[in-house]
């Protein structure tokens, strides 16, 4: 049974100039022990959909879904109270900015122990032992001294390790990492990614990795879901996605990577992601797509079968698969 299954999730924001659909009919399925990467550019709704799952969106957002199940339990039917018991314990999340995700007023140790107290009800001694154990697990040198350090005394990489320690403190079954390495340097990014995959293998938790970096996806994920302008446009295991992308957007995105360039000028995707006011009536990618025709401009595309990577496209690429 899937650990997490979300059907037809939509999120709308009420803004100054009318409602804005940030997430549009997205399905997410994660099995235990899976590593799913959600890839997309800014405005693709990749973070918003996960924040909606966590119930962390501001009041201006309206969340609708046909199904939202975690471990067989319906999250939609829960009271905020019972939901909180799952969120932070069984589902944990880490964010992009490690420096601002930690409260600067409290020591690192206090912040790690807080979650342990709330969710596991450990006594002070057990909390301290577990906190030390966690610090060691995430590879923080000299954990005893670091427990009493304040966030501003630590570097970005160390702060992100602390965030990961806090996230895995209650042995979550699902960890959502929202751009966990974007704010970090390349060598530190490699360390954090290695740590995340190692922890995933060790604990068997499922991992959802939200990112815009195709390199990170290729090296970390098992399955990839590509989002564009709030819709999921393609979902495939990582190997086939990079080898034979079925959606023109995925294909164009991969071609635009400088490391794949064969000529001095890079292949580009003309135009920009549609905003609140210029959402096309048909396929959202049609205005920028090299293959679009009149059907694409006017009719929203169907979702193709799994053999075609579940793409939302009238004319999927890659021949009959």
């Amino acid at each position, binding site marked *: 049974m899937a650990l997490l299954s979300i059907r037809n999730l939509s999120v709308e*924001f*009420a*803004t*100054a*100039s009318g409602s804005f659909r*940030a997430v549009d009919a997205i399905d997410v399925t994660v099995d235990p022990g899976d590593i799913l990467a959600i890839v997309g550019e800014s405005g693709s709704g990749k973070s918003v959909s996960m924040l909606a799952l966590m119930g962390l969106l*501001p009041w*201006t957002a309206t969340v609708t879904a046909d199904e939202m199940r975690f471990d067989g339990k319906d999250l939609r039917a829960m009271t905020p109270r019972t939901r909180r018991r799952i969120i932070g314990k069984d589902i944990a999340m880490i964010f992009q900015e490690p420096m601002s995700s930690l409260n600067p007023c409290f020591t690192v140790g206090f912040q790690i122990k807080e979650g342990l107290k709330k969710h596991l009800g450990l006594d002070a001694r057990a909390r301290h032992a577990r906190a030390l154990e966690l610090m060691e697990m995430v590879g923080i040198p000299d954990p005893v001294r670091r427990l009493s350090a304040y966030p501003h005394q630590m570097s970005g990489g160390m702060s992100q390790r602390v965030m990961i320690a806090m996230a895995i403190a209650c042995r979550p079954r699902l960890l959502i990492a929202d751009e966990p390495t974007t704010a970090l340097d390349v060598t530190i990014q490699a360390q954090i990614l290695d740590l995340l995959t190692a922890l995933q293998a060790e604990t068997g938790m499922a991992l959802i990795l939200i990112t815009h970096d195709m390199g990170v996806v290729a090296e970390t994920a098992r399955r990839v879901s590509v989002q564009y302008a709030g819709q999921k446009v393609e979902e495939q295991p990582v190997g086939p996605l990079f080898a034979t992308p079925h959606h023109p957007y995925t294909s164009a995105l991969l071609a635009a990577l400088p490391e794949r360039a064969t000529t001095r000028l890079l292949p580009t995707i003309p135009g920009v992601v549609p905003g*609140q*006011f210029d959402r096309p009536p048909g396929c959202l990618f049609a205005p920028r797509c090299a293959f679009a025709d009149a059907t694409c401009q006017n009719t929203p595309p169907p979702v193709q079968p799994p053999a075609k990577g579940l793409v939302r496209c009238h004319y999927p690429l890659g021949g009959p698969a």
Partner: protein
Amino acid sequence: MSVALRQGPLAEFWYYFRENRGAVIGLWVFAAFAFVALFAPLLAPYDPTQQFRQSVLLPPAWIAGGDWAFPLGTDPLGRDMLSRLIHGARYSFFVGIVVVVVAASGGILLGLIAGFSPRWLDSLIMRLMDVILAFPSLLLALVLVAILGPSLTNAMIAIALVLQPHYVRLTRASVLSERTRDYVVSARVAGARLPRLMFVTVLPNCLAPIIVQAALSFSTAILDAAALGFLGMGAQPPTPEWGTMLAEAREFILRAWWVVTFPGVAILVTVLAINLMGDGLRDALDPKLKRS
């Protein structure tokens, strides 16, 4: 989320301002106040200093003994309350405008200089402002007026001086945060010299909090001017200034409530309206408080 990407800045401002109902009401009251102040001679039924000796201390028209010729009654010298109040709006408005302009322009200039200057000059200016802020503001204004001599002009100078440090601090704070932004560096790479950096590049980006402060100190100025007037240190009789009117009528407070109540209500309503409007301005101009 990109809110109102396609709207002009003015339309967006109005959207956020409109959200706050109190602010909109405040704006209307303030507009009415400004209208009254502008057209006082046309609106007032009588000259504010004209004395009707046969109708002294007449109550408002709807009370027994009142006369519809004097809708809000008359004061101990037989002057029409309504006309005096209408002309009083003029003085209050004048005080507000002059004080805000003087305090803001001086304060902004000092704040810009402090924000851009080397550390010693910056500390010198800021410590000076701290000294001014350390005095109770009304007391300082009183001392200044006592030195300069009691008159409305001197009261305005004193109030402007007392309000100035707030502008200096506010401007300096936003200059310091704006100064390190890339667009300022980019202007320096383009060869912009200090005056241009200060006034063309940085100042327009610091204006939002200053506008809010200006609205709020408008009401402070009116209040302080009334207080000085009440203490006899501001506008001198027979000027129909609201604070002075209150002071003149002090002894009749038990016999003729209207001579004290109406100027008091006028001050209260005006100051409250401006404060509400200032709150709305802050909500609309300060992006940190914006929702979504």
